[in-house]
């Protein structure tokens, strides 16, 4: 109950004064636990001009449990899995780091920041990270070609994936790491 209230507040916060390059919408008005976010590739980066779909899934326990954020649009990035899952490695989303007072706005800004400044030292895609470090020109070229191929035109959120498991618990092993959960 309180969870809904907080999400509603955050939604207002994100839609009333949307931060640069971030557009939030609800795919289903009756379900505030699933957000669709369109992220504009930051100017001056290889992602400029691209529009990236993000799916934000808020577990029922939100804000006590971290939201799951995945890219619905494929992106060539060291910290996003290069597949249809689009998992993101973001420290503040890891279950052991998540603090209930973290806001979605700062989560989304952190994701956008990741586009401006990839973290090759903490990669999900080691090969891309390697390329980013060693051959920026090649990396930019690849990233741009991904943008041209996937991130132009209307953003699609219905990538082939199932329902993210909301509020998953790990029985035993602590944190699995990176982009915590949310993938199907």
């Amino acid at each position, binding site marked *: 109950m309180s969870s809904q209230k907080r999400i509603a507040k955050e939604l207002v916060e994100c839609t009333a004064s949307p931060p640069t390059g971030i557009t939030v919408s609800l795919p289903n008005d009756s379900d505030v636990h699933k957000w669709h976010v369109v992220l504009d590739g930051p100017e001056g980066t290889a992602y400029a001009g691209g529009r990236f779909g993000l799916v934000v899934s808020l577990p029922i326990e939100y804000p006590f449990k971290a939201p799951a954020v995945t890219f619905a649009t494929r992106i060539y990035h060291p910290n996003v899995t290069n*597949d249809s899952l689009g998992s993101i490695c973001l420290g503040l989303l890891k279950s052991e780091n998540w603090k209930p007072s973290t*806001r979605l706005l700062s989560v989304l800004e952190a994701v956008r920041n990741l586009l401006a400044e990839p973290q090759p*030292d903490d990669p999900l895609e080691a090969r891309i990270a390697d390329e980013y470090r060693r051959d920026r020109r090649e990396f930019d070229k690849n990233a741009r070609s991904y943008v041209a191929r996937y991130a132009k035109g209307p953003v699609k959120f219905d990538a082939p994936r199932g329902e993210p498991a909301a509020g998953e618990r790990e029985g*035993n*092993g*602590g944190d699995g790491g*990176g982009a915590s*959960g949310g993938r199907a």
Partner: protein
Amino acid sequence: MADDFDNPRDVELSSLSAIYPEIQNPDPHDPYTIALDVPVNPSQAVTVFFPAASDDASPPGASGAGTAGPREQGPVDSHELAHLPSIHLEISLGPRYPVAEPPQITISANPPWLPAETVKRLEEDAPRLWQEMGCDMVGFTYIDHVQQAADDVFGLVSDKGALEVDPKHKIAILDYDIKARRAAFEKGTFGCEICLEPKKGSVCHRMLDCAHVFCVACLQDFYNNAIKEGDIAAVRCLAPNCAKERGKAMSPGRKRKKPRTFINPSELLQIPLDQEVVKRYVTLKYKTELESDKNTIYCPRPWCNGAARSKKHRKPQGLELAEASDDSASEEDDDEDHAEGETKSKPYKPAEDLLAICEECSFAFCSRCTQSWHGEFVRCTPRREKGELTTEELASLEYMKMHTTPCPTCAAPAQKTHGCNHMICYRCQSHFCYLCSAWLDPGNPYQHFNEAPDGRVTGCYMRLWELEMGDGDDVGYGFAGGAGGQVAAHAVPPAAGALPQELIPEIIEPEEEEEAQDARHAAAAQPHEPQADGGQVGIAREGPLVLRIAAHQAAGAGRGGPRARAGAAAPGAVRGGARAARNNQAVGRGGGPQQQAGRGAGGGAQRGGQRGRGGRGGGPPHRQNANNPANPAERAQRRNANNNGRNQEQAGGPAAAAVDPDDPGDGELDPVHEAWVRHFVQLALNDEEDILLEEDSDDDDGDLQAYGRWA
């Protein structure tokens, strides 16, 4: 001039009461005496010393303590106070005031913490100011003067920023401070960062250690839930950056001396949480602490299972912790323990290591043989527990061996359900690698999976995301297996076709894994008959080796395969290696004595989707080979595996090839096999495996084809 008005005293009093509405008139018969409380809230919190109680002998007439500074070396009691009891000011305007007479001032404090000389000096300030003003109305000037003086506690604060006060006023002064703070806090409004609502201070709680404010309802919700779930580590301040700063200070061993991130039980009670919940928190914390210590000895009585007393971890006295304030609880525990130690363990000093006394039931037993205490001169041997395990227990032990990784610090087994291979122990918060159980630096855990600054790599290089969908088939969520495959496969696009095949067995028969696993165990055990036990352990322990081999392969491929597209091909080859190891496993299992043809292979496929590790598997013969070429049992196993046909050879190829360059003296590989292996590596590096498969896939079902494509 004064005569223009009725009475200058009336004028002054009316203007004063306009400025200070809190002015009172203590004596109704004397309208010219006013009283005012001047709060003493120093702009900067003051350290207040309460010298040891021996000072009480000082003349009681001196209302308050001297300002002589720290003359005491003994234990000093100091507190940071932001509010001191206010000063009571009585101003009496005589009939000849203001022309011929200064105002009469009486100053007091309750309790009388203000030193007598300060009181005197303040009182004498009135005539002085009156004179400086040319014998005019001085009321406002004086009150203002006292207020300003109060801001630095009337100059009583010594150079060291400390104020010394007679200890007999300690309780009253501390009380006042707490009340004043609380009042100020309750008056305020705070935005709770959890529910994002503005809340009155009266329903908020300020964290004692870091001063972050949250509303009580949110804190209760969160902590109750965390404690209910047993997630003790989450019981900490909920502000985002708070954890980070404190986390840096947190050591993996979680020493109590370090700045703590967890919340003291007494604070939880203050929030307030239910006593029952706090009790559970204390108990769980104690238990976690015990469990994190490998040296903990448990009571052998089956109905008890309490931990033996130890100096390091003391059993919390539930209620005591609840009642005691802050740190004193642990101190009290200390004392108690010493007392017990004297009465019980001293007589047995020489055998202190052996004698263990259960914390719960006080059973005294020998920590070596776990029999009841037999005195220090009895020779005993550790009891063998192997034989006492039921099959069920054995099975779960076996499962743990296969599907968990022990924490390097506390040995707690962890099973990954999903995510990357950077793990944090649920028990002791150590960071470690799921693949090889290596301890990882909490500051930069991913280094382990990346290239070190000096260019060196570990066996887990680029393997952060192996086993992403969890270890074991009963973990993870949804039909994660397919996704796991996808993750691994995206480097080789054609692999997409493999997914449906891989999913099928999992969907239809989820429990099949058990059987497949059994088959695998059997396969592993069979060639080892002479030393079945040790062999299996060996296999289970060697998980990391396969990883290393796979990592080597990148190098190996670079060296051995001149046609490899050097840079780009290497990572692919690593993946290939891992996958090959997996294949190996699948085949080894399928080839076991209890083989159930399609099922064995199906299980292999199913596992393959989720397991990149392979190393824990039943029979990856080439790895064994590399590690210990002289072991005849393993040789036999390998041969056994080899007999399963070319398809399997092909599958196992890359791993073996990777081994070769590192182990040139290994005569185990027969030339035919070796040729196969080399051929396969070449094909793999050239992405030509599809052709190969078409030739070979006729002697098995499609699952291996799927693998072949990946490899």
